[in-house]
């Protein structure tokens, strides 16, 4: 992908947003805006390019190296473009015990890409990640910002199908344990079917 050096500054026509983000923090804590600014760029462009790193550095009065150092520390900022649907497969213990390895194999086969890759159309990218905090509703797949929990085989197949059509489904509400006032504290498969029907 060729990147033009003369790309227009991201925040040039988003001054209000910029002011809002900077305004969240006390004056002496201006640098706190670094992560939110990176988030804004990534949300819009699906990754943070070198030019944007430089722009954010300038906004905050930092060196670009500092911004790069911070950005590279965190695992959810991308320095290269990811797919329109970035699929993050949790592969830590609870999800692994619920089949996340097989889930990954399925996605890799189905989408023809492996961990860290983006497909040719720029539609899907997949990434194996560590614990997403959905251990009681494992396995979990995070599509961009949305969690799809208890992603069994058939749910997974229909999710991918929906994403291919460009229509990500509303995530089903999974609340384990005492949630939803259900006495059993557990939304069983039957309930799942019911919920899915209503979506």
């Amino acid at each position, binding site marked *: 992908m060729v990147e033009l050096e003369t790309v227009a500054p991201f925040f040039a026509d988003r001054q209000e947003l910029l002011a809002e983000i900077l305004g969240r923090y006390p004056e002496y804590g201006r640098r706190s805006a670094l992560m939110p600014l990176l988030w804004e760029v990534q949300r819009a462009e699906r990754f943070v390019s070198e030019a944007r790193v430089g722009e954010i550095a300038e906004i905050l009065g930092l060196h670009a190296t500092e911004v790069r150092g911070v950005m590279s520390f965190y695992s959810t900022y991308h320095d290269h473009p990811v797919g329109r649907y970035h699929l993050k497969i949790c592969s830590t213990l609870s999800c692994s015990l619920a089949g*996340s390895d097989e889930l990954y194999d399925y996605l890799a086969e189905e989408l023809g890409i492996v961990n860290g890759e983006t497909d040719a159309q720029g539609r899907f990218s997949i990434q194996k990640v560590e614990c997403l905090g959905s251990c009681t509703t494992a396995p979990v797949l995070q599509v961009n910002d949305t969690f799809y929990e208890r992603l069994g085989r058939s749910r997974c197949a229909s999710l991918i199908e929906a994403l291919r059509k460009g229509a990500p489904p509303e995530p089903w509400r999974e609340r384990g344990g005492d949630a939803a006032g259900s006495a059993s504290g557990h939304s069983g498969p039957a309930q799942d079917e019911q919920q899915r029907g209503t979506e």
Partner: protein
Amino acid sequence: MSDAVAERPTPIVSRSDPRFEVTLYRHVGIEDAWTLDYYLGHSGYAAARRSLTTMTASEVVNEVKASGLRGRGGAGFPTGVKWSFMPKADGRQRFIVCNADESEPGSCKDRYIMEDDPHQLIEGMIIGGYAIGATLGVLYVRGEYYLAYERLERAIEEARANGYLGKNLFGSGFDFDLILHRGAGAYICGEETALMNSYEGLRATPRLKPPFPAQAGVYGLPTTINNVTSLASAVHIMERGAAWFSAMGTDDSKGFHHVQLSGPVAKPGIYEVPMGISYREIIFEVGGGPTMPAKAFIPGGTSCPMFPFTDEYLDTLMEYASVAKKGSMLGTGGLILIPQEKCMVDAMYNIVRFYAHESCGKCTPCREGVATWLPQMYRKLLEGLGTPADLKLMEEMVRNMRGTAFCPLADACAMPVQASFKFFRPEYEYLVEHGHSQYPKSDWWQE
């Protein structure tokens, strides 16, 4: 109220005790419970109102101290005591920070509070802020919890628009506002000083202590950091009194805890249970029992050494002291069941890989041991290339990682590995001898 503590009735130590009721999680799973309307309809902000208008800050601190509430983020430091560490007011801005960077594998209790009952947390922060004299709160939410972030964002807006955040809350003269900050994927941010660095826009490496956050926290200003569940618990302690809270649990561990059951168990999920309940009751009665033969369970998130699935350990009570006596920790309450059919070496590799991925790289034993060498040793074993000398090497290496690193992350990796060697060494030996595990990989993915 603290008078009542002395003549406390028999404590609630079982979930089947009729006196026990679900508190923090009562709104979790209910549609629209996250709205201000719903929250106010369920006596929302009453505890904060009462605290701010009828009590002094030190009375609030003392009430929480009297309740015996210990931090629910994993380390279990008494919350009220932590609050009392704040220096005398000297005109400097103070902060209360909520550590909502829940990332310990096996744990997800904070997420649902934020997603389904964000006002409860906001109220907890108001109370905490009032107690320590902080007029600004920082809510640091882990980056992956986007729904939680959105819900909190809207809840904060609602609270602000309706006078629950801002100037002169409840006419008490106390000002309080919140800064919502989103992380971006770094387990180390669960360490309080790393979180502060992250919030300040720095690389999230842990800071040197002392100075402790109470002396120099965010922006070098006095700061107290609490976990989501600790702060939410404070709401109910202020609402119902310390005695109510300390009537649950044991002498060592008061109140309730959130067990997050995962692995092959009939009813995985999050359960609010009184402290002092036995692991047997949790797994068999609350969770409906294992769905396949189990050989071990991790009591409180992957950093807590595992217990073998034997009577001795199943009968251990879920309280700080008892678990510690058995060589593990209460942790966050993320209980993971490990089935007999799962190769323990593979399970440990999974855990080690997590800590390897999350090591910040600051100190040598963690960067080179946890993040580099140990996972490679596990890969070698799992590829069937290990030797008996490798096992000895791994044990020595892990011993060198214990207690030598800058922050507890290396210990969090080393301790479970040591436990696996202690209880499941034969599995390692089998793997070395035969070049493959005695438990072949099988398909765990359900329909």
